[in-house]
């Protein structure tokens, strides 16, 4: 028994040493490399037809094809601007209304229960309503994205406002701060880590709901291109678009996270 434990521990350590050799920045690459090796092996084995499970090189050439024809760049810019517009509307409203429901009793009474009821409704369920209201143009995409982002940002902002430590408020009041200054310089900064967590979640949700909105009723964008690829059974293109969506989302999330660390530098971890 004791021997087993030692073996396990030694094994763990040598793996750990292997990892430290790679460095923290290289760790994701190890994981990607591992998956790529498996994927290549499956591709070489010929177990699956290309139309079901394309090999890495097919996906790569599909990507190059889309890039060279210009379709990829057009779709990227259309999708990104939709996500950006929808996110901006939703996040602005979310922070604004969250600050109010968190702070003004009347607004909280009027809106909090209703908004809570909306939260479980998934973005994709809204697409039919959005199309009836706004048509299949940009309006319906903005609506679905901003709605989803709004709820996430509102919820986190509202809760951040609830957990402002009482001692901060007491300190501010005993230091003679006006209501306005108490709000702007104490309540909002104290809630800022929560607000920012909401914004980060909102960015991720903007992508999720973007694809939901584009899958039905769009003539451009990454989501539309996925749907189009299905009609032509271009699984290689689907894989390419899915990977692009993943990389795009992860990159933007990392950027938002970095900005957040700068803005709320006092919050560790």
């Amino acid at each position, binding site marked *: 028994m004791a021997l087993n434990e030692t073996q396990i521990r030694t094994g763990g350590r040598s793996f750990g040493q292997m990892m430290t050799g790679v460095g923290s920045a290289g760790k994701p690459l190890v994981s990607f490399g591992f998956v790529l090796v498996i994927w290549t092996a499956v591709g070489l084995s010929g177990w699956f037809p290309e139309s079901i499970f394309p090999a890495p090189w097919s996906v790569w050439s599909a990507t190059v094809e889309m890039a060279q024809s210009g379709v990829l760049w057009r779709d990227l810019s259309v999708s990104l601007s939709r996500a950006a517009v929808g996110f901006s509307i939703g996040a602005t409203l979310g922070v604004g209304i969250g600050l109010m429901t968190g702070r003004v009793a009347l607004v909280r009474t009027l809106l909090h229960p209703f908004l809570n009821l909306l939260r479980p409704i998934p973005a994709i369920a809204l697409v039919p309503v959005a199309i009836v209201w706004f048509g299949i143009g940009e309006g319906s995409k903005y609506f679905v994205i901003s709605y989803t982002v709004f709820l996430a940002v509102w919820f986190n902002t509202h809760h951040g406002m609830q957990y402002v430590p009482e001692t901060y408020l007491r300190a*501010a009041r005993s230091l003679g701060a006006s209501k306005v200054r108490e709000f702007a310089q104490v309540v909002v900064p104290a809630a800022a880590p929560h607000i920012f967590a909401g914004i980060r979640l909102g960015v991720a949700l903007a992508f999720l709901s973007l694809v939901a909105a584009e899958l039905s009723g769009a003539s451009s964008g990454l989501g539309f291109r996925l749907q189009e690829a299905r009609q032509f059974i271009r699984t290689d293109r689907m894989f390419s678009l899915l990977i692009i969506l993943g990389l795009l989302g992860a990159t933007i999330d990392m950027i938002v996270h970095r900005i957040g660390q700068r803005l709320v*530098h006092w919050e560790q971890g």
Partner: protein
Amino acid sequence: MKGDVSARQLCIRFDGRDGPVTALAPTDLDLKPGTFTALIGPSGCGKSTLMNAIGGFVPPSSGSLTLDGDPITGPSEKVGVIFQQYALFPWFTALDNVQFGLKRLRLSRAEETDRAMAALEEVGLTAHKDKYPQALSGGMKQRVAIARTFAFGPEVLLMDEPFGALDAQTRLIMHSLLIRVWQKHKATVLFVTHDVDEALLLADHVHVMSAAPGRLIRQYDLPQARPRTMRGAPELLDIREEIIGLLHPAAMSA
């Protein structure tokens, strides 16, 4: 001279789960301008409640509570508070924290900075003015809090176990620093602590509270000159024994 606190039959009750709970039984207390009073008692006896009432954070249930003859109705800049958890704003630097309390004076920018810098200098933290509270030690944080509170010149200073989280060595340094700053500004101080020695070394008057519901059961006047040491004043040792007996009656009889 201002900073005259007077409580008459002051009683504070809260609504608990099983009906009202008396946190502070009817209490008379006078804090004369410029005096240093320590309040000591078992935990949960209501000493923080009494302090919160004077700070205007908790309304009296009955009785009267006045500052310079006017009823205390809420927090005011006349009453400065220093909390055990420091309550520095982590999003502001040490200097910004001190300036926060000066804003209401509507000074010019330069004047405000000068005054905040002078306050930091008094507590020996000029070199750390641009640091955020997270980068400061516990003792340094409390020094910033002291600077922040004294900077705007409160008449009354409430301190709720301010050095409770500090190690013994730092605590001694903070004691002499507090006495020095207080003697310069001459605010009326109410100092809550559960450390008997701390009360005896610092205060002009020591009030001992009973276990919940709290009331003041004994008062000691300490005319000894500062700085004090327990060894230098044998009568303090006798008082210490008495207070410990009051705080832990069971331990004494055992």
